[in-house]
């Protein structure tokens, strides 16, 4: 104990120097947070059925097994496609809606936009379970024209994920003030033209960043997708993992999860590259893509 406290004291004596205890703690945390997932991914490459240790290398649980691999088991493959379909749909609808909402909140004052903003913020901090249950009751009791399944899931996810573009784009708009639009209009642009050619290009990095975040978040979503799922074909990867994890007998489920993680990483990498190019082009948007995300969380 005295060793520990001396280390802490030594670390704090020089806040910019090496603080060994704090570093050990941090590395322990980082390995605890990532190693289990890395092991799960490693197991998906097993050449045997073992779920508990690494045994050989193969792709049988990914593609090559004709009936049991993640790719060739119909319910697993359909889950992968459903996750991707929902995430794409959510990005395509939630991001434009969110941008429009952010622009509206930026201009339009009064009780209605204020309460819409409040409601949206509330939905974000509410346990997701409540949104899931509430929407489930609506689609099963009231708006029965909306079928549970892809349509219901997409509406739920769009409602929930819209908050990201609103927060991120609005933060950008606040620092932008009105000068771009005014300058464009001084140069003879119509209000719509000023918005399209003056404001949207400046917002583009923020839009790309939020699209990226919405995609990765929607593809991983469990609670909303599960409450609003209908037929078996609307089950996503997360739902599949939830129902199969305890009874799994082959690493195919690990392979499925890894496929989804791979998709997220590809989207993040592509989005990050696009973001950097756009940010370099417009001088007003400094900072990395991470900043937007941290700002939206903190």
């Amino acid at each position, binding site marked *: 104990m005295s060793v520990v406290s001396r280390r802490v004291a030594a670390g704090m004596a020089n806040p910019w120097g090496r603080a060994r205890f704090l570093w050990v703690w941090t590395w322990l945390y980082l390995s605890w947070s990532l190693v289990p*997932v890395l092991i799960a991914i490693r197991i998906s490459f097993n050449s045997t059925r073992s779920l508990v240790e690494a045994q050989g290398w193969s792709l049988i649980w990914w593609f090559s097994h004709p009936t049991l691999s993640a790719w060739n088991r119909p319910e697993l493959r359909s889950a992968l496609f459903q996750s991707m379909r929902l995430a794409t749909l959510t990005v395509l609808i939630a991001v434009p809606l969110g941008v429009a909402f952010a622009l509206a909140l930026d201009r339009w004052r009064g009780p209605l936009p204020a309460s819409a903003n409040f409601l949206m913020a509330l939905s974000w901090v509410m346990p997701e379970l409540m949104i899931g249950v509430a929407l489930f009751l609506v689609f099963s009791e009231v708006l029965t024209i909306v079928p549970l399944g892809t349509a219901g899931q997409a509406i*739920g996810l769009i409602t929930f994920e819209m908050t990201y573009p609103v927060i991120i784009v609005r*933060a950008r708009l606040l620092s932008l003030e009105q000068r771009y639009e005014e300058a464009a209009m001084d140069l003879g642009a119509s209000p719509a033209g000023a918005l399209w050619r003056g404001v949207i290009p400046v917002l583009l990095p923020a839009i790309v960043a939020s699209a990226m975040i919405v995609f*990765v978040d929607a593809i991983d979503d469990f609670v909303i997708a599960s409450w609003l799922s209908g037929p078996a074909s609307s089950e996503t990867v997360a739902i599949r993992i939830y129902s199969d994890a305890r009874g799994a007998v082959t690493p195919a489920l690990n392979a499925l999860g890894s496929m989804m993680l791979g998709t997220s990483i590809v989207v993040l990498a592509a989005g990050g590259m696009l973001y950097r190019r756009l940010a370099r082009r417009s001088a007003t948007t400094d900072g990395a893509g*991470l900043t937007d995300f941290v700002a939206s969380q903190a």
Partner: protein
Amino acid sequence: MLLFLALPLFTMVAVAFGSVDPLFGSPIPVWNPLRWDGSTVAGVLGQLVRPEGAFFAPTLRTVSYTAIATGLCLAIGYPVAYTVSRHAHRWKGALLGVLLAPFFISYLMRMLAWVNLLRDDGLVNRVLEALPFAQPQQWLGGKPITVILGLVYGYIPYMILPLFGSLDAVDRSLIEGARDLGARPSEVFRRITWPLSRPAVVAGVLIVALPITGDYYTADLLSGSPRTTMLANQIDFLLHARNAGPTVGAALVCLLAAALILPMLWYLRLVGDAAIERDGGTG
């Protein structure tokens, strides 16, 4: 927006205060607030607070698991956020990326990883077998500790991020000033770093505690035993049940929402203030 947020929330209240169709056993929402029937909600409330009530034990568990898990998140997360924001120098960006990684890995994938590790023949038990003083355990057989640690594992990134954001924004000249004026390191921490990070601590605690109260899948995956049932598990079960199930479940959600509305508003206020300060400073 209004349609898909306000309407669902209202529907939930209407179902909770509504009645049950005696023939089909399906819930009948009552839309007129004047005709609401409070008996279900009152009944559920009774089950919640009376020690012999059906929801008493799950409530107790929800409260204690949430408190312990949130406390652990803070205790583990604060030093990490502190180290990365203060001592990481040029590695800060890379380490921040690693801290953010869990956000992009599906929660369920992270839980699946633990399900594999904690199996009876899993890696954790093999390590324990090899140690002289430890015994292998049935980790997935309904142990509260498994559920709590699972919750900590799942939600700790949400704690670290606001802490990092706030610790990173602490003005270094304040710390140097304090040291120049003769403050000991522990004093610098106690009188400058900690007070400045306190709003982020509160925000982190709330943003971790709120979703944990609505979490049913962690307990389901890592235990599945009635010994670790939390309120959210009850809600999940009731809404998928027949007859009065959905009505009782909706009443439970409404009561949970009523209990959580203050913390939710507190969090929004906190974050709203921070945003105003930030934008006021830069804009």
